[in-house]
């Protein structure tokens, strides 16, 4: 059973209550509770539930963005107090909007979901040059590269990025998403996975990583 305070933290995120997330995070520290557990069982759990509500059509992007604000407000307080060696990252992911495209709201939501699930995220931002993804993946040793595009022209950068990532590290997992993409186009581009929502991106990454490790 999660600590009652962690449950309240989760509710604060789900209810988009940034002030409550801050207050409760401070209370976690005041009471000497474990910061890492508060993040995973509290803040991250709330964000995960928000993602589920989005997938079910109860929440929309405005709600998700405000949930994310509450999540990050709590993370800012709790993260510095994670004990060394305690945080177990699920993995490292390099993420970005591909060259020629500045539409980053979807990418930012995917980033939030990865962070909420305990991934170490390297965000390259938007309009990212083709070669930067492979360079960053190599630099940080990421197991996943996540690409976003909103335009039929910018999505044409994806096969080139995938080729450059895979040629440098054939074991790297590449996910793609964005309005013009589909599972068929993703497969045609050589991507390992496609996701239509932020939450599904994390689930897909987790499943692919688990399959590649087994």
């Amino acid at each position: 059973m999660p600590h009652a305070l962690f449950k309240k933290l989760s509710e604060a995120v789900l209810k988009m209550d940034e002030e409550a997330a801050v207050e409760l995070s401070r209370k976690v520290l005041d009471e000497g509770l474990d910061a890492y557990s508060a993040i995973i069982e509290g803040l991250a759990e709330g964000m995960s539930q928000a993602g589920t509500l989005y997938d079910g059509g109860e929440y929309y992007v405005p709600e998700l963005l405000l949930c994310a604000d509450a999540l990050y407000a709590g993370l800012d307080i709790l993260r510095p107090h994670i004990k060394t060696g305690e945080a177990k990252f699920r993995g490292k992911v390099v993420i970005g909007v591909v060259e020629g495209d500045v539409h980053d709201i979807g990418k930012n939501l995917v980033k939030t979901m990865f962070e909420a699930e305990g991934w170490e995220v390297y965000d390259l931002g938007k309009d990212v040059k083709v070669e930067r993804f492979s360079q960053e993946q190599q630099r940080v040793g990421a197991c996943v590269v996540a690409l976003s595009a909103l335009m039929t022209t910018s999505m044409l950068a994806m096969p080139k990025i995938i080729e450059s990532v895979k040629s440098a590290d054939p074991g790297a997992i590449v996910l793609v998403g964005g309005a013009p993409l589909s599972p068929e186009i993703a497969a045609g581009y050589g991507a390992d996975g496609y996701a239509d929502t932020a939450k599904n991106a994390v689930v897909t990454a987790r499943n692919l990583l688990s399959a590649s490790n087994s």
Partner: protein
Amino acid sequence: MQFKKDEMTSEERLTALFAGRPVDRVPFHGLATGFNAINVGYRIADFYRDAEMGVRAATWTIAQYNWEKMPHIFLGPLGAPEFGGSIRWPSGEYAQAPQIERHPVQSEEDAMKLEMPDIRTAGFIPILRDFAKHSIDAGHPYCLIATDELFLCVANLCSIDILCKWVIKKPDLVHRLMRIATDFKLAISAHLAEEIGTDRLIPWLGEPTTENRLISPKTFEEFVLPYTDEYHEKLIEMGYRIVATHICGEQNANYPLWSKIRMGEPGIISVSQEVDLEDAIRYFPNDVIMGNLTPALIQSGTPNDVYEAARVCIEKGKKATGGFILAPGCEMPPKAPPYNVWMIMKAIDDFGWYV
């Protein structure tokens, strides 16, 4: 290969369609902007920056593919440069259209200080006006000018992220910005009516930011519906008879609300690929339905995939009680394979005849 000979000119076909009279075959509109530029050897930016080049590229492409003579321009960031933000023109291998570099509204204070720009000279407005003039001078019977997306205009002013948060946190401020956007677009439409006339000009509203992957139908009902309804009503009062509305993206849950808005006489309802044409016809039985080939399929599908998708659209669209125009569900991909585009026209020749 020769297609069957048209029995109507494009002008006759469009005029008949908009008057509710029979036409010889299904018309096609390319919803092409950057595609026109690349097709004739220009850069994409040339289409948007230079109205004369833009109309020339559209005219040549329309003639090449036998599309309907109704050039179209859509400057997505409209609102940002006119109110003091900045944009960048498309350049490089992957950019598709002008994009916003800096939004004019970064804070609540900025939103309160917004002032109406000079409608004759600000930002993109001279380009829109010149595109319409050149289009008419080139002999096109109609021209689609994207003047009037409202929620998108507010997103252009303050960014979609801030807009989404303000929808919940500061609804009064969003109403204020919607008011400004509506007045701004009405002023542009009045200016174009005065300079160009309303006979051949069709205002085009494209609302990608109201899609249900972003906002709820409830948000649409509160913030978009009343202003769009008012806007359309005033457009018709100004003398615009036909109004085109591109319901962009996944908006199935918004369709009942869109159908409450006065759409023109007739309206043109441009349907995205996420919505079934039969549903769109049901909601808009008196309007011209336009759509809804998947742009990514035109870009990445095989010629046979595209031909088959066009056949399905044509067979559904021919049942539209208010008339039908085959078109992509959103902008024609600028780098669409020409053979795929030709296959769309072949599908019209094979399945699109009414007589």
